[in-house]
């Protein structure tokens, strides 16, 4: 049976929406720059790429039409390389990896460029024309629930205190700042040309944040709640790309492979507690890999909110010291469609860097879903 591997991971810097260095950069063009760097750095022959699969949570305007195809053309990939766009909200680009893996297993191609992209500066969360179905709204209001509210619901139901959330958030910033200072993020980042100069570092990380500073913030979504801007991932601009190919192809062409995909899964949960999505999805993926959560040496759990990360760690019985070693989305930022590619690429990179056998990359998804990928060291 054909094995599927991750043979390259790059990303743009992640910067705060509206005020960061990438706010004035078109998302399709930024994604194309990152894809071009992926091709250059992995030294793959672009003729061999079957498809560009782009994950995007709000694929409209500058990241609209079929942005996957447009990114391929912008990146000067050969005309024969196809392109598609995938939307599974925050799970979009991880699911794009799953689609590539499935196609490889089917023998429908050997190499795929997966790219995730989101400019939250230029396309608002919810898009420009949010038009909920009156029928669904009457039946199940929570289908359209705001993400912040789900974070409050999870905090309440899983009894995650505000201080625990803040402690986790400070830890995320500390880990990300350390990784940044030690140059551990440098290799994955592709500098992006902007009208204001070259942007080459992450801009969301607050190395100086403290428990006291976070304790002073007002609740962001519910005046009586416990979730603040400090314990939520910031609105972010960014893009990430992963080279997914068959193990045979990688071996034949001498590509630097960082991990093998062992299993994948998606699963639904109640929309009002969507943050718990990693639990249902990871359990499925782990069962398919015949592994236990405790066997995971590396875990990348997307930090949409502190409350849902802590609840997921609790329910999956994960070792917190193995979670998000270089910090997570609370510190780095969460450009919705790009985060899945980042954390899957990161999990593969960490397996290689830190040693260990297995890694789990998992995310919650708005509307009530989870997605998970289990990786194995080569």
């Amino acid at each position, binding site marked *: 049976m054909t094995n599927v591997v991750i043979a390259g991971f790059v990303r743009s810097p992640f910067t705060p929406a509206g005020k960061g260095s990438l706010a004035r950069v078109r998302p399709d063009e930024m994604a194309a720059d990152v894809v071009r760097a992926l091709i250059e750095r992995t030294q793959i022959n672009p003729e061999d790429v079957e498809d560009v699969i782009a994950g995007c949570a709000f694929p*409209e*305007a500058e990241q609209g039409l079929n942005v996957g195809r447009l990114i391929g053309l912008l990146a000067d990939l050969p005309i024969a390389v196809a392109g598609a766009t995938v939307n599974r909200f925050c799970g979009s680009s991880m699911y794009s990896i799953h689609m590539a893996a499935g196609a490889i297993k089917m023998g429908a191609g050997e190499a795929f460029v997966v790219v995730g992209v989101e400019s939250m500066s230029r396309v608002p969360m*919810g898009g*420009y*024309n*949010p*038009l*909920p*179905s*009156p029928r669904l*709204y009457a039946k199940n209001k929570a289908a*359209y629930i*705001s993400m*912040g*509210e789900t974070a409050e619901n999870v905090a309440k139901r899983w009894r995650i205190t505000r201080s625990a959330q803040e402690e986790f958030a400070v830890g995320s910033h500390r880990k990300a700042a350390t990784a940044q200072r030690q140059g551990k993020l440098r290799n994955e980042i592709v500098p992006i040309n902007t009208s204001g100069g070259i942007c080459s570092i992450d801009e969301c990380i607050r190395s100086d944040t403290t428990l006291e500073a976070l304790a002073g913030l007002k*609740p*962001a*979504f*519910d*005046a009586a*709640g416990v979730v603040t801007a400090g314990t939520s991932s910031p609105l972010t601009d960014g893009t990430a790309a992963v080279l997914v190919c068959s193990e045979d192809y990688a071996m034949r062409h001498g590509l630097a492979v960082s991990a093998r995909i062992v299993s994948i899964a998606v699963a639904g949960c109640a929309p009002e507690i969507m943050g718990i999505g990693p639990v249902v999805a990871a359990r499925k993926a782990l069962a398919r890999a015949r592994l236990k959560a405790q066997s995971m040496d590396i875990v990348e759990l997307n930090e949409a909110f502190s409350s849902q990360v802590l609840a997921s760690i609790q329910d999956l019985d994960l070792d917190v010291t193995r979670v998000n070693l270089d910090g997570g989305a609370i510190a780095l930022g969460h450009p919705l469609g790009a985060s899945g590619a980042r954390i899957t690429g990161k999990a593969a990179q960490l397996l290689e860097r830190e040693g260990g056998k297995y890694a789990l990359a998992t995310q919650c998804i708005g509307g009530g879903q989870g997605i998970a990928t289990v990786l194995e060291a080569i």
Partner: protein
Amino acid sequence: MDEKIQSVAIIGAGVMGASIAGHIASAGFPVLLLDLVKAGTADRNAMAKTAIDRLETAQPSPLMSQRAARLITPGNIEDDLWRLAEYDWILEAVTEQLSVKKPLYDRIAKVRKPGSIVSSNTSTIPLSYLLLDVPSTLKPDFLITHFFNPPRYMRLLELVVSAHTRLEAVFRISEFCDVALGKTVIHCKDTPGFIANRIGAYWLQTAAAFALHYGLRVEEADKIMGRPFGFPSTGIFGLMDLVGLDITTQVNDSLARLLPPVDAFHEVNRELPIIRNLIAGGYLGKKGTGGFYRTRETSSGQLTETLCLTAASAGDLEWRPISAPQHLRILESGQDIKDLLDAESVYSKFAWAVLGRLLAYSASLIGEISSDIATVDEAMRFGYAWAYGPFELIDRLGGAYVRKRLADLTLPVPKILVDVGEGKFYKENNGTVLYFGLDGTYHPIIRPPGVLLLQDLKLGKIPVLTNRSASVWDVGDGVLCFELHSPMNALDEDTLDLLEQAIGLVSKGHVAMVIYAEDLRASPGHENFSVGANLGLAMFAANIRMWPKIEQLVAKGQRIYQLVRAAPFPVIGAPAGRALGGGCEMLLHCTAVQAHAESYIGLVEAGVGLVPAWGGCAQLLARWQSDNKMPHGPMPAVTRAFQIISTAKISRSAEEARDQKFLQEHDGITMNRHRVLNDAKAHALRLAPNYEPPSPSQPLQLPGRSGWISLTMAVEDFRKKGIATAHDVTVLNHLARVLTGGDANLIEPVAQSAILDLEHQTFMELIRLKETQSRIKHVLDTGKPLRN
């Protein structure tokens, strides 16, 4: 012939220099702002950059839009002085020391281009001092341009020229400051402090000294030396806090140094230990930790305190909670100010001791600081925001009264006050205002070309149409002016009836109409084009359940505003100050708007629990939907209109009103308040030939119920966040229904008349709610919104 001024360089990025740069940039001109290189900083332009950053956060904002800041280029005088060669006007705003200014002039002279104008913003130093030893090539182009603080809001600009100054330079700078920057330019004689500060500093010193003498509290002195005489409500101590005690002291010291020993200023300019003690204690006024007033956070909210003057004189800085002055009811009663001056109280003694000296001093300076009284009155009105200048105050009191009361103070009566005899300083003759001159005869007040004031036009004329709320005046060339003049120009049935009549009248023999209001004595920010529909009347009708009456008024407003829109001639709205609610809707239906730069426009109905119902929702929606730059689909325009109306957003300038589309691309902005009517008339006359009324309103593509759900979800999020109150949710959900087109279907465009029906229906639903009525009552009672 010199070219018009197109660019300005300012040297000195202190509060004044930077604020002037902000104002010139707000007017749309590029500005180079230079300051020193700050030792120890890597960025050599750090000082100018910091000053520009401060402009963007300072309140009240020195900028008319955030965009303006981008027109200011920061620099420093070591690296960038050569760039002065590119600028038409170089304005020096450095510290008030000749030893700093003079070497700078030598450097400017070497690099500037021939014919560029160089001026100083000095507030007290005479031009003759500045001109000593300056390079001879500079003298013909050198003058004083003295702005008042804050430059955006204070209309006065004092201009001082020398015998060497080229007339062409004087003309260019006057025109630029008047037309482009909106200033009232007055020509002053070259004396210390020029006009406004000379009189203003005397007033402040005299009032402070007598407040101490009579043992008044800070708030008592300010209450008397404020509104009753038409002075700003900050009074004297509040004004010193606002200006800064350090600056007040500098101006006094400078005047003390420069004025001849015989000047009466020296008699009142005794050093006040209080001010010395405050400055020594680090209390510089409003810009610091307080001065005569200070505000403290307490467990029960903010507490305003005033300095105890007697304790402070002895060196103890002690503040006490502000108290409502007792026995001062007369101040609120609006009675003749003579009643206040003649009453048997310590307040009356204080009032006359100050006012008498102020009027006598002002009158004694005629001839020295200005050759006419009208200029002096204008300087005090626009430089110190007084409603009346000293000679207008004398006219209000009567010359004989002032002469008699001066005798009580054993003060000599100035010559011009003797000469005016039983007459007044101002009188009207055949439709012209005349002022009393030094030669003992009356002279007409000549307005600069392009200044058209309704107050002048009205002299000796009767309106074409009039009722209690509005009048129609013939402003010539076939143009009628519809003037709003009810209290705060609130709109009622009378206004609407007269507007309908006026439209009928213009159709028969006139070519255009301008809608306008004029309150030239209102201080900046307090003028009203219209505060909107008369809520008092609406409340009265609601109280007695006269719903049909309210229905009728809503329908009438909609019908007549549609008549304005469809009129077969151009209708130009000419706002200045606040144009809110129904006043804003009136502008939205005009052919075009010629707005004063200081126009504050907004649809504020949601604040009182209502929705705009005279076509405001439909017009704003249509404007946003016709913007090609908006993202496609039915929601972006709806969302923008919802954001603007639901937050009762009021633009902070005419320029900013463009961002909300209260003003459109083709609408004009006039910087000088006195030119608004003339510019509006000219705008009307430009459009009048072959005028075609706009085509019928285009139907709108609206999302209906799906869009409504989307907006109500956002409102619910605001409620959870604690931003929206319970009644906000009700009002905004109703507003969302209007803006999304009710039961509209995405593929069936909605006629604007259907939106008008929704506005009407929704307004009637909301006004019946007791929560909305509570909001209206609260605003009427307190002037503040109720958050229920």
